[in-house]
C-alpha cells in the first residue's frame, strides 16, 4: 500500500482507538447527505415510474387520435400493426357521463373498450379487485373502487347512466330514459384520481351512449419490450392513414414529465448542498489537522517524503472520508427506502394523515425507484466533493518546509 494512503488510514483510524471522533463526525456528515439524496431521489424516481406505469397501463405506450372521430378504426389498426415493434392495438372511446345510484349522482369519466382486444394492450384484468372482467358486456359496467364506495354500489347493483346525447333529446321534449347498467366488476389501479372517477363499459355501449355509430376516439398501442416509444411513434405516424396522429406516452405527458424531472433535479441540487456543507466541515477539520500536525509533516519531509506525497496523504483522507461516508450513506439510504412504507405508516398514524396522503399524492404506497444513472450521479458527486474537500488542506501541508515545520511550536 502506498505510504500516503497507509498514513491517511492510520490518521483517520488510529491504532488503539475505536471511536475517532473527528473521523466519525466527518463520515456521518457525508453519509447523511448521501442517505438523504438516495431517499429523496428514489422516492421522486418512484413517483415518476408509477406515473409512467399508470399512463402505460391505462393508455398503452402510444396513443393514436384523429382530429375528430376516427371513422374507420379497423383500417387504422391494420396500418399500425404492420409497424415493426407494435405488439397489439385496441380502439377506445371516452367521455363524461352522469351516474345515479339510489339518488346519489356522480360525474365520472367513461371509457369504452373493446372487451375482446383491450387486455392485449392494457392489463385491466390485473386491476379487478371484485367481480369478473370477463363478465363485461353491453349491459354491464366496471366501476372504479372509490366511485363504487361513494355511490354505495356493489356487484350486481344497477346504476343509471345519463350521457350528453340525452341532453339533445331534452331539446325535442323527449322523455329522458337513462341507460341501466349492472355492476359486474370493481377495479383499483392505486391512483387516487383514476380510482375515484372512472367507469369502464364496452365500446359498443359507449358508441351508443355518445351516438358515435362505428366511430371511435382513438387507438391505444402496445409496443414490444425494449422498443423506443419515440422511434415507434415516428414509424406509426409514417404508416398512418391521413387522419390520425400518434403520440408516445412521453409526448402526451411532456409538460408533466418536465415538471417532474425539474422537481427531481431541484431536489438533487438542494440536497447536494448537505454534502457540500459536510465537505466544508471535512476541509475545516483537515486544515486543523494540518496545523496540529505541522511537526509531523516536517518529520515526513525530513524522512524523505516529497511535498506531493505529503499532499497525497491529506488528499487521501478526504477521499477515504468520501468513500466510507458514501458507503454508509448508501446503506442508510437503502435501509430507509426499504422500510419507507413502514416509516410513512408510522408517521401518518401519529399525525392521522393517511387519507390526506392518498388524496394529495395519489398513491396508496410510497413508491421508490433509483435508476443506475441517478445512483452513479449521487456516488460520483459525493466522492468528487469529498476529494475537493481534501485538496486545500493537502495544498497547505505540501507548502510547509520541513525545517520550518520541525521548528514550529
Amino acid at each position: 500500500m502506498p505510504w500516503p494512503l497507509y498514513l491517511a488510514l492510520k490518521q483517520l483510524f488510529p491504532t488503539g482507538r475505536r471511536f475517532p471522533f473527528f473521523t466519525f463526525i466527518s463520515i456521518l456528515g457525508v453519509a447523511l447527505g448521501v442517505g438523504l439524496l438516495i431517499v429523496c431521489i428514489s422516492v421522486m424516481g418512484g413517483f415518476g415510474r408509477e406515473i409512467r406505469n399508470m399512463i402505460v397501463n391505462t393508455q398503452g405506450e402510444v396513443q393514436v387520435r384523429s382530429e375528430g372521430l376516427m371513422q374507420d378504426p379497423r383500417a387504422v389498426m391494420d396500418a399500425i400493426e404492420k409497424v415493426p415493434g407494435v405488439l397489439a392495438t385496441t380502439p377506445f372511446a371516452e367521455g363524461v357521463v352522469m351516474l345515479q345510484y339510489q339518488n346519489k349522482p356522480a360525474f365520472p369519466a367513461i371509457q369504452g373498450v373493446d372487451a375482446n382486444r383491450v387486455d392485449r394492450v392494457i392489463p385491466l384484468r390485473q386491476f379487478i379487485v371484485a367481480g369478473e372482467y370477463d363478465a363485461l358486456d353491453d349491459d354491464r359496467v366496471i366501476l372504479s373502487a372509490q366511485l363504487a364506495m361513494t355511490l354505495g354500489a356493489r356487484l350486481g347493483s344497477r346504476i343509471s347512466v345519463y350521457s350528453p346525447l340525452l341532453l339533445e333529446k331534452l331539446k325535442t321534449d323527449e322523455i329522458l330514459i337513462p341507460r341501466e347498467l349492472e355492476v359486474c366488476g370493481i377495479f383499483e389501479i392505486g391512483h387516487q384520481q383514476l380510482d375515484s372517477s372512472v367507469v369502464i363499459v364496452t365500446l359498443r355501449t359507449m358508441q351508443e351512449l355518445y351516438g358515435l355509430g362505428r366511430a371511435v376516439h382513438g387507438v391505444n398501442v402496445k409496443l414490444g419490450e425494449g422498443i423506443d416509444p419515440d422511434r415507434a411513434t415516428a414509424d406509426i405516424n409514417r404508416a398512418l392513414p391521413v387522419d390520425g396522429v400518434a403520440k408516445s406516452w412521453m409526448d402526451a405527458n411532456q409538460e408533466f414529465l418536465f415538471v417532474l424531472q425539474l422537481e427531481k433535479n431541484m431536489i438533487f441540487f438542494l440536497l447536494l448542498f448537505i454534502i457540500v456543507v459536510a465537505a466544508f466541515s471535512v476541509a475545516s477539520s483537515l486544515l486543523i489537522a494540518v496545523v496540529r500536525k505541522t511537526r509531523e509533516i516536517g518529520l515526513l519531509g525530513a524522512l524523505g517524503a516529497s511535498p506531493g506525497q505529503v499532499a497525497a496523504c491529506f488528499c487521501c483522507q478526504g477521499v477515504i472520508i468520501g468513500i466510507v461516508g458514501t458507503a454508509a450513506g448508501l446503506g442508510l439510504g437503502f435501509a430507509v427506502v426499504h422500510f419507507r412504507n413502514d416509516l410513512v405508516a408510522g408517521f401518518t398514524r401519529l399525525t392521522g394523515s393517511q387519507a390526506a396522503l392518498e388524496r394529495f399524492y395519489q398513491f396508496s404506497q410510497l413508491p421508490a425507484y433509483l435508476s443506475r444513472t441517478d445512483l452513479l450521479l449521487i456516488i460520483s458527486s459525493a466522492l468528487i466533493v469529498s476529494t475537493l474537500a481534501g485538496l486545500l488542506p493537502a495544498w497547505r501541508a505540501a507548502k510547509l518546509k520541513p525545517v520550518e515545520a520541525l521548528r514550529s511550536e
Partner: protein
Amino acid sequence: MSNRPPILQARGLHKSYASGARRLQVLRGVELTVLSGESVSIRGESGSGKSTLLNLLSGLDAPDAGELQWEGEATLSAARRGRLIGLVFQSFYLVPELDALDNVLLAARLQGPIGAAERARACDLLGRVGLADRTGHIPGKLSGGERQRVAIARALMNKPPLILADEPTGNLDEGSGEAVIDLLLALCAESGCALVLVTHNAAHANRCARRLFLREGGFHPV
C-alpha cells in the same frame, strides 16, 4: 581512519537569519568533513548555531554560501536524504497514531513498499534498543527514553551511512540520557555508520572520536 571515504563534506558554510532590520550571521565559513564510520560531536552554547548547522548538513535547509557534498554528490533529494541520513531529534517526533513498530517502519515505507524483511529488521532494531515487548505500543504509552529509543531505531531502519542526532538527550533525565547515548554509539559502531552528535553535554560529547566546539559561527578547538 583517514583511509575511509568522506561521507559528508562541508566547505565554507555561511548562514544568516533576519533579526528585525538587520541580519544575524549564525555560521561563518564552517568547514567539516565526516568520514565513513566516524563519530563526531559538536558542542556549543545555546544560539551558537548547532541546530542550524545540522539542518544544513541534513539538507533540510540551504546555506547562504558554501558547498555541501554527501557521498561526493552536491544534490540531496528528499528520497536520497531518507536513504542516506538517519535523523534523531531532541523532541523524538514520533507519529502518535502509529505504534512503535509502525513508527520504525515509517522510514522504510517512505522509500518504497515494505515486506517481511523490513518488518523483521524493524522488530530486530526494536529488540536491540530494548523495546521488543513494546512494539505494539503507541508513543503516548511510552516513556521519554523509550520514545527516543524508537526514534533511534527509526533512524537506523534504512541502514543509512550517516546519523545526525540533534541533542537526543535534551528532553531526557540523566539516566535515560546516558542509556540513549550508549545505545546510539553502540548501534552506530555496530552498523558502521558515521555519527554527528550535537549536544550540550560535555560527557556525551567526549565519548565521540572527534570533538568540535562551535562558537561565533565557526569551529574552535575544545
